[in-house]
């Protein structure tokens, strides 16, 4: 057996992040404590920038999708697009995390694990066979388990980490079982070969393949926190350190959904009659559950967690459409969604640091007037989530709905619209609280206002820029998404 040719360029985004991770880990030992936080954050940020640049280069240098590394890795624009989103999310997450009061002896590890998680995500979206798929998935999941629990002094953080570990492992196990069944039935690991075998042996209705497909869907549903596999989401999002939640809500969901689309259209085109319906049903359940449960949340992080469940539903609509327009819609949707999600959690983090307690609808009363930048930014993020014009969220929903209509899923379109209508109530509740209610007495932080966190505010501002900018610059973004989605075999 000959050694495979290694196309280092194809996996350069992952490698850049791994390098950053290694350097921050070294820094945790060799850099003196006073400079450690700055050093780690800068190295992590540079890692994310490098990964984004490499992914951009891979995007421009890959007009044709090719399989690399013994056909286990796909070098294509679809993956590169998702990697750029992950790198951007990671960079902003570093900005949101920087001011967080973490224990000095963990700060190096924090950024090391963050970059390692992102490296796993960048690897996952490129995977072209079942082994690399599972490898990438576990790689970033294990990193995230640690990240959730990294504030070892806070019970809620430990609880979140443990919960995520248990439920996440269960999800991974289900996924692995599904992968094993598919491998057992087809005898192939590569996505394209699986499709070919199913075609050749007429396995489209084979029980093992179908059970495997169902389990793969469920396993990815766990990671994307789509209902009914979302049980861990509110608790983990609430308990985990807010910057970690911000990163998870944007990047984890993005890669899980992007990968789901890739697996479904590459490996299971023969079963598309079945999985489009299954995905559509999961989308409807997510929309209903996420939106209705979010209505009654007083805690902002929990509310945003349920909101993220409902957005998984919207993005699943794009997957269920099973056409190129759907692929385009999914990729475009990721941009404003990730930006708004990171930004909203960034605002929550800012308020949390100001108050030193959990952020609820009650204690953000009047915040819009006290903190104009954060207030306006939160306004924009909520409008984007709710799909109002002047934000990218509107265009994203428009594309998703258009994709659903194009496939003939008009009922899915209606479900999406009803979900949007319900979601207005809780998104606008945030705005109502920030601008239309007066602060209750006694919430002012002792000792006056904390210092302005320029980095955090800058990150939130950047998120706002992306959220609004993606509304006006639809054409260039959709061109990129179109090029990326065109490399999937719809």
């Amino acid at each position, binding site marked *: 057996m000959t050694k495979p040719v290694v196309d280092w360029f194809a996996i350069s985004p992952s490698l850049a992040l791994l390098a950053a991770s290694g350097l921050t880990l070294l820094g945790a030992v060799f850099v003196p404590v006073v400079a450690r936080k700055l050093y780690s954050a800068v190295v992590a940020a540079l890692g994310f920038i490098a990964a984004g640049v490499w992914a951009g280069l891979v995007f421009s240098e890959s007009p044709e999708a090719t399989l690399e590394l013994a056909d286990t890795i796909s070098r294509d624009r679809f993956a590169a697009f998702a990697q750029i989103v992950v790198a951007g999310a990671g960079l902003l997450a570093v900005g949101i995390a920087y001011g967080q009061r973490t224990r000095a002896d963990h700060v190096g590890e924090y950024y090391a694990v963050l970059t390692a998680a992102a490296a796993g995500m960048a690897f996952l979206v490129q995977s072209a066979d079942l082994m690399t798929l599972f490898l990438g998935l576990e790689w970033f999941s294990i990193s995230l388990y640690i990240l959730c629990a990294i504030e070892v002094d806070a019970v809620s953080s430990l609880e979140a980490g443990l919960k995520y570990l248990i439920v996440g492992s269960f999800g991974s196990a289900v996924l692995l079982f599904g992968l094993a069944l598919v491998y057992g039935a087809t005898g192939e690991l590569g996505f394209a070969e699986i499709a070919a075998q199913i075609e050749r042996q007429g396995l489209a209705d084979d029980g093992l393949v179908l059970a495997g497909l169902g389990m793969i869907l469920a396993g990815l549903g766990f990671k994307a926190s789509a209902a009914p596999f979302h049980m861990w989401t509110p608790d983990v999002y609430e308990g985990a350190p807010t910057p970690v939640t911000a990163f998870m809500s944007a990047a984890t969901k993005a890669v899980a959904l992007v990968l789901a689309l890739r697996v479904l259209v590459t490996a299971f085109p023969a079963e598309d009659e079945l999985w489009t319906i299954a995905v559509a049903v999961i989308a409807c359940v997510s929309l209903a559950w996420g939106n209705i449960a979010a209505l009654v949340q007083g805690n902002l992080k929990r509310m945003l967690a349920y909101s993220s469940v409902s957005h998984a539903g919207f993005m699943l609509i794009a997957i269920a459409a099973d056409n190129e327009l759907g692929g385009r819609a999914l990729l475009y949707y990721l941009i404003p969604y990730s930006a708004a999600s990171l930004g909203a959690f960034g605002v929550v983090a800012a308020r949390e640091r100001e108050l030193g307690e959990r952020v609820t609808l009650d204690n953000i009363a009047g915040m819009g007037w006290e903190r104009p930048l954060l207030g306006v930014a939160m306004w924009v993020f909520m409008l984007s989530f709710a799909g109002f*014009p002047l934000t990218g969220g509107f265009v994203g929903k428009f594309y998703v709905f258009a994709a659903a209509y194009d496939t003939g899923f008009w009922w899915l379109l209606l479900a999406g619209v009803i979900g949007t209508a319900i979601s207005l109530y809780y998104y606008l509740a945030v705005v109502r609280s920030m601008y*239309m209610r007066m602060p209750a007495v006694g919430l002012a932080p002792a000792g006056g206002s904390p210092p302005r966190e320029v980095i955090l505010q800058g990150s939130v501002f950047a998120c706002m820029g992306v959220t609004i900018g993606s509304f006006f610059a639809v054409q260039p973004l959709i061109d990129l998404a179109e090029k990326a989605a065109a490399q999937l075999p719809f």
Partner: protein
Amino acid sequence: MNEWLTTILIFLPIGAALVVWLLPLSDRGAGSLALLAALAEVGVWINALTRFEFEDGLQFDHRYTWFGDLGVSYHVGLLDFSLWLVGMTVVVMAAATAYAFWTGRERARAYFGLMLFLTGAVVGVFASQDLLLFYVFFEAMLIPLYVLVGVWGGAGRLSATLKFVIYTMAGSLLMLVSIIALGLTEGTFDLSRPFTSDNPLIFLGFVAAFAVKAPLFPLHGWLPDAYRESSAEVAAVLSGVVSKAAGFGFLFIAIPHFPEPARDLQPLLLALAAAGLVYGSIVAFRAPDVRGVIAYSSLAQMSLITIGLFALNDFGFEGAVLQMVNHGLISGALFLLAGVIERRAATGDFARLGGMARGRPALATLLMTAGIIALAVPGSAAFAGEFLILAGVFDEGWGWAVVGAAAIVLAAMYMLRLISAVLHGQTGSSVPDEALDLRPAELAVIVPLLGCLLALSAWPAAVTDHLNFG
């Protein structure tokens, strides 16, 4: 230059809004800048009016591809009737801004920025030549309105805004479904291209949005709260300007692009409008306060306009456009007058008002003038509009015209009741003893509105002779 005119009309106020928000101006500075921008906007409109070639169809149009793969573009331009509606909008918005400036509002920078932003969004609605762009502006109106009512409104503002938003968005989202269905079926979202669809469901999606916005009976649940709880000038804008987006939508999208469904559902829509007309008029007659009368009269008037639109003939369309312009100015003036009254008596309840004419000749004159034009006395602009509407709908069945004519009588009843309850009779318990007539600033806001109305009364053909419905 000409092709930029519409874009300037839309983005001059939005740009000014950004300036007001971002520059650290004083309250007075923000207000002055906003007023200046609103007046400049009126100037730009007059410029557009002088350059406009009636009979030439779409003008000043400007097109820029927004996302090409689905055929969506930024395409704006003015038709003859949109020109008139834009004119009404900029005048009423300038009056509302001036009123707020002289009354003084807390957090002035946010407030005036939102008013300017709203102006741009409404003009955008009237100027859109692309379905999705129309939706964008239609929704963008909601954002500033939500805050304007929710922050600067009265005690019940929170529930009022909630109702308003839920009603409006339910309708709008159905319209979004229709827009997607129509645009993808046609392969383009451009409205300047003539195309027709005979799908009644898509038509109903548009009707839902416009029926809530107008509002049409029985979708008017949000109206009384929103008009009562918002500040006077925002109520003026809501009922005078924003509701016209619905009439415009019917006239510009729903009727011309869906001839068959419009014809099929004509009886239903006429019946709803007639019901709203009678219901609104009766409730206005029974309303216990100034704002209540104006709010429900607004429901009645929008219903009358809808009757004109769904007469589906040129008389009806002309009457509806004229009446939209009239009602915008009348309703704007009346709500501002209601604000003036409330500032003096601290209440709008008829039980505690009365006898305000004594020592307040200017207030009495203006309220009488506005009220008399509103009740469509022969010779007034509103009379011309209502006459055309009735003439139009008479062709579709004399019964509709009878309902419309009866409503004119009802309008006389509620308007005269309003006038006499405020101005005449015993001095109300809340009416202060000092006379406190209108101040010059208040006159400067309301007199121009009434001046426009008197001009239109003298020459209604200025609008109606310059309309073409291909």
